[in-house]
């Protein structure tokens, strides 16, 4: 049998991702593709599966450790027969316990080579870019400088970086925002503590960042979707038989691409120097999905190259995957514009938060039949409220009005989609 070192596979463009769960311990038998550990990235949790069957010889990470692509996480002893053997097979020789269990208190006799004395954590900082004063502060606070990102010039680690590392928060720009003071609610009545879901804990800071950084304006309009709706119903009836649905969202996505192509400022991001606009030549549209665990915004790639049928099928599959909690980092990356639809629930309008670094997001609520004057009489028309939030640093009000109007025009006459 041989020892295989299991490494973190390609997990998208993430580094230093925390381990949130370790599913195995030394001695456990695993089958190929059994989950070994769970990692938490920006908004998704992902499992690292066993590359092949065997027995866990050693676990190299624990909950709370951070890993990147290529980090060793554990060692599996593979035996050729283990591939077929049932997982409960225990005929193999027992494995040595993890090394952490074998470390005993240092005794006089064992400490013969002082060069190998363990130093307290974070004391050997190698060549990190930090001055002696910063190195000293880090030692006093037990901060491992090799794990601190420097915000100073040329990546120099500053005292502030060390202090921030101590409170465990990422560096924040701008003036400190006063905290909401803690209150003892129990004084007023019974309370209970319910932990936020992991998704909420992850999406919270992202939404907060976007809300604080982006000067938001929301523009409201409405589109007459009476004709679209009847066309959609026809398509949907046919689709149902084939096991998928055609929703308004697919049309909104296609219409958005047309409007985005005509207004490239909306398919863009502000460069970090805030002096340039990065225009994107691809059209990946995110859509907000309400899952039992919280909000997720999966991204549909290359919407401009997909038809309504293909989009509808993909939307169905992705939503299903998100609700099941099987979210891979690649599913939620690379968006250029987002749509948040509350149409199935209700409401007359709302102000969605721009999914920064994108610069605009379209919110839609429930369509309502309204009397519309056609020049001679009021006609009952199905009207869809559109709420476009945008980054006012990039987009002006007039442009936003034009964009939204154009979007409405397209959905009012979907024949334009084929032009």
């Amino acid at each position, binding site marked *: 049998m041989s020892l295989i070192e299991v490494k973190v596979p390609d997990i998208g463009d993430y580094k230093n991702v925390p381990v949130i769960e370790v599913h195995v311990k030394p001695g456990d038998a695993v089958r190929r593709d059994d989950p070994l550990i769970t990692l938490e990235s920006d908004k998704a949790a992902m499992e690292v599966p066993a590359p092949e069957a065997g027995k866990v010889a050693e676990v190299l990470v624990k909950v709370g450790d951070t890993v990147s692509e290529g980090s060793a996480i554990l060692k599996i002893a593979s035996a050729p027969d283990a591939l077929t053997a049932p997982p409960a097979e225990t005929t193999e020789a027992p494995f040595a316990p993890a090394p952490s269990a074998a470390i005993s208190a240092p005794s*006089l*006799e064992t400490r013969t*080579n002082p060069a190998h004395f363990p*130093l*307290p954590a974070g004391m*050997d900082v190698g060549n990190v870019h930090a001055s002696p004063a910063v190195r000293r502060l880090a*030692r006093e606070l037990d901060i491992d400088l090799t794990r601190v990102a420097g915000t100073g010039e040329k990546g120099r680690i500053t005292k502030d970086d060390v202090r921030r590392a101590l409170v465990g928060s990422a560096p924040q720009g701008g003036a400190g925002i006063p905290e909401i003071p803690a209150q003892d609610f129990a004084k007023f009545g019974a309370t209970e503590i319910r932990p936020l879901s992991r998704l909420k804990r992850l999406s919270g800071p992202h939404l907060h960042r976007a809300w604080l950084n982006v000067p938001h304006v929301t523009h409201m309009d409405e589109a007459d979707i009476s004709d679209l709706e009847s066309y959609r119903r026809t398509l949907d009836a046919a689709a149902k038989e084939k096991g998928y649905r055609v929703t308004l969202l697919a049309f909104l996505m296609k219409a958005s691409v047309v409007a985005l192509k005509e207004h490239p400022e909306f398919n863009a991001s502000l460069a970090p120097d805030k002096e340039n606009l990065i225009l994107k030549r691809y059209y990946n549209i995110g859509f907000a999905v309400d899952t039992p665990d919280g909000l997720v915004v999966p991204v549909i790639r290359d919407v401009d190259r997909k038809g309504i049928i293909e989009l509808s099928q993909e939307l169905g599959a992705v939503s299903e995957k998100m609700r099941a909690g099987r979210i891979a980092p690649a599913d939620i990356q690379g968006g250029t514009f987002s749509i948040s639809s509350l149409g199935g629930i209700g409401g007359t309008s709302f102000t969605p938060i721009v999914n920064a670094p994108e610069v605009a997001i379209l919110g839609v609520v429930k369509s309502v039949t309204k009397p519309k004057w056609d020049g001679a009489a009021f006609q009952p028309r199905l009207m869809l409220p559109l709420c476009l939030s945008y980054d006012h640093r990039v987009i002006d009000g007039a442009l936003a009005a034009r964009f939204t109007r154009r979007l409405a025009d397209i959905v009012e006459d979907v024949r334009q989609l084929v032009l």
Partner: protein
Amino acid sequence: MAVVDVCVPEIGDLQNEPITCDVVVLGAGPGGYSAAFRAADLGLKTVLIERNPVLGGVCLNVGCIPSKALLHVAAVMEDARHLGKHGITFAKPKIDLSALRAHKDAIVAKLTSGLSAMAKARKVQVVQGTGTFRDPHHIEIALASGGTSFVKFEKAIIAAGSEAIRLPFLPVDARIVDSTGALALPQVPERMLVIGGGIIGLEMATVYAALGTRIDVVEMLDGLMAGADRDLVRAWQKHNASRFNRIMLKTKTTAAEARTDAIYVHFEGEAAPSSAEPYDMVLVAVGRAPNGARIGAEKAGITVGDHGFIAVDRQMRTSVPHIFAIGDIVGQPMLAHKAVHEGHVAAEAAAGKKTVFDARQIPSVAYTDPEIAWTGRTEDEMKKEGRRFAKAVFPWVASGRAISMGRDEGFTKLLFDAETHQVIGGGIVGKHAGDLVSEIALAIEMGSDATDIGKTIHPHPTLSETIGMAGEVFEGVCTDLPPSANLGPHRP
């Protein structure tokens, strides 16, 4: 590892109660007194054991300080002589050796008495005597005043230093001295041999040359001042070509006979004279050996290496975790400033502080004429390792200040990491190089790069400017040299 004998029946036989303390420091050189003072400042009850009647160790009493007092005198004499070229001629100097000796001794006395006062102010108990370990928690002291005493300690810091290496084949004679003997200024010999071309030997050679002695230097290796980059040493050697009589490299001293008229020394090797040479004084400066084998370390269970060095970790802990060691006794470089920093680390670690010796550079200075100073990585060492680096040099012939002083033989060299352009080393040869090198030391510790140094305004006209300009040379923006001398990304 030896089994530690923890039964100490002898302690019970003492006529005196042992002195108890939190920390005992063995040796009061710069490392030892710094460790003791820091420990006391951290609130620990501290005892300092020193065999000499005064504090300060070799450095203050018979090393750095007295040698600098004499080198200063030598430099002024040299400068005065030099002024002859500029139209100012002084009378030939008269040397009153006993007055010079008294001047040097007064300087030493001033500093050592200051130390005693500082020990008192910190309530550090100084015990004069020779301390040796009896077990992991006791040191026996053979008191200078007679009798013995014991110290019972929680933690100990060994700072017992080093001693000049003797050459066993040399006869015992008052004219054959080590650095301590040479600093005592017993005479101004007509002919003097310095055995060993290291920093200590060459500093003493510089002093005696200024006093009028004709000096030969003999060195076994193929170069002087081992450890310094060769380009620095070459500049020194060129300036000193006429100061010394003979510099014999790759040559060994094989024997010496003490006759009444002189010490006759036999040599062997590349530059050896054909017959024995007569000298009025012979200085043996072939290095220093640590005192690790003289302190009863084995009784405390401390591992001592073959050459008398005590191995320590980066908190200065020996193989016995509550006993620390610092300074010359733990390894090269044997320098007071290294020992002081190690002493602070040991004292802080003994007081339970989170601390570690993490210096990225330890400067070395030869207080010769011109001075040579270097710190961080050296060019020669990196070439040997095959490490990629970049370098920039500013020659002092382009320094207004150096020219004004009539001393433009030097240069300033900075060494950079090839990737990050951070300063990782540097060397200076020239007047006041030892004072100038501190800027390079700070640059290395701060992780500064060439731009940081070049963009820092240095005062004009100074020698320190040459460091800023070396940074500019690297960047290619120096306007005090021809454009072709500029390197780097912005090269004209």
